[in-house]
């Protein structure tokens, strides 16, 4: 359940990140359209809520809410490091 919460949160942050042009540019993708942005951000929000649900499932609602913040932090950190240090074919745009 904890692992599930982490991956849901990680997926949520990934969706949010790829609603931003700068991260899409780093991946070599085209710019985001407004429709895509809405979808991605909504999906991200839902996944974060799902992550909270998973945390509550493991820890109960009061402790689970606290844990949720920690899960969000560590999954966001993981994504930041993945984006920054992934092997890339093109140099980092300055």
């Amino acid at each position, binding site marked *: 359940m*904890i692992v599930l919460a982490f991956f849901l949160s990680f997926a949520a*942050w990934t969706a*949010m*990140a790829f609603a*931003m042009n*700068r*991260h899409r540019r780093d991946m070599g993708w085209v710019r985001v359209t407004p429709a895509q942005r809405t979808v991605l951000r909504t999906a991200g929000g839902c996944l974060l809520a799902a992550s909270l649900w998973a945390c509550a499932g493991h*820890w109960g609602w*009061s*402790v689970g809410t*606290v*844990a949720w*913040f*920690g*899960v969000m*932090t*560590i999954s*966001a*950190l993981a*994504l*930041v*490091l993945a*984006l*920054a*240090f992934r092997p890339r074919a093109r140099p*980092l745009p300055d």
Partner: protein
Amino acid sequence: MKEGFRQSMSWLHTWGGLLLGWVLFFVFLTGTVGYVEAELDRWMRPEKPLVAAEVAQADALALGVAYLERTMPQAKRWLVGPPGGREQPELRYFAEAPAKPDGARGKRINGYLDRQTGEKAEYRDTGGGRLLYRMHYQLHYLPRIAGEWIVGFCTMVMFAALVTGVIIHARIFKDFFTFRPGAGHRNWLDAHNLLGVLSLPFHLMITYSGLMFLCYVYMAPVIAAEYGWSKKEGRVFVEEMFLGGADTVPGPAGVAAPLTPLAPLLAEVQHRWGPESIRFVDIRNPGDANAVIIVRNARHMPSRDEGRLVFNGVTGGLIDDGGARANPAPQVLSATLLGLHEGLFAGPVLRWLYFLAGLMGTAMIGSGLILWTKKRRARLEGRFGFALVERLNLATVCGLPVGTAAYLWANRLLPVDLGSRAAWEADALFLAWAAMAVHAGLRPAARAWVEQCGIAAAAFGLIPLVNALTTDRHLGASLAAGQWDLAAVDLTCLVFGLGFLAVAWRIHRRDRGAVADREMPSTTIQEAAE
């Protein structure tokens, strides 16, 4: 006007953060390390059995009370904490003798008992993790009040620094995932921002709740305005606070009365709370007609007020089970904030998340200090103030961790029968830190960073080795016995050692030109954000 506001908040953030950053780094680091005081306590007392015997809490409590009956039969208070869980892995006792005729506080004793024999356990004299935790809010070598006020003042500035940091972070959402490793100071800015933003709820909570611990001291005038300025009137506030949960225990009646047998009482407690759930048993006025027995359970909820049963000490009847009491909302809020800050309710996974958040906060402060010098190097290099800041940064960001490692080294290397051993261990921390500060002052700046990171790598990385050479509670033993709490200390030190080694290596290679590193001309925060 928005730009002017941001700029003035930027000034406040920068200068408040810089001038108090070194103290705040100390507070955050000791807080983070102090959070794992139970694990450190155990590591620092290698005389404790490797695998603790399984003893029922009721039996351990009986042994504890029997010991106190022998040792301090006339007492104002007996407190026995049975082994149970990570927060309380040992059988502990505390007792306070009745107040002296002149009103002075009675003698206090505390220590550990062997959970199977009930005899006093002899472990090496050490402050353990608890001393580090205390330094977190009292500092060291200072009178307690002075330390608490200094930390309180710094916490208020930390609060302002966090809020101004959010205000001036113009692209807080756009930059949410941005980390640009590479040359110049942009990576330090990104790191500082990320460490702050990604655990922002934690930082805000920990800072505000930190103020709450001593809020009745810091904001005494507010209470005084409502209740009166004399000490007696101030005590009324405390009484009203606890009125719902009457921690106000009557003084001794002066009439002897045998203490009720504990076994049926504990059975009642276990029936209500489940087995092995007692955190401590607090007996007031034992042997007196006004004896009261308070039992608290292990923390499961963030709020500090949960789980309390009060019994009549002579009859064994239940006086208060906390059920009828509905705590007023502000008290619940306060207790929850304090509970969140202490994080004692957290299980193993959540504890690691807390520890990580603490490290992130410490690194946020450290990266902020370093960022200050990075941005101003081109403009201010060569000036005394700049050099001073750079050396203080180095001495703190590298030196204090080395001091913490030295504390653990001292625990292993100092003779066990040395007098005032615990004080010497603390001295070792500060002596090592001072030595690093001297080194930082004497060596050329660039070399000094590599050297100090190297020293830190050795200081942490060799701890498992020192442990193995001086005790038999080393990694081999702890892993083989499945004692993860014990092994975690050695393993975490190893990871820190490797981390410092990687940093030292990277700086070393950069200095030798293997990695091109152009120092960016200093820019304002706005330009960096462009």
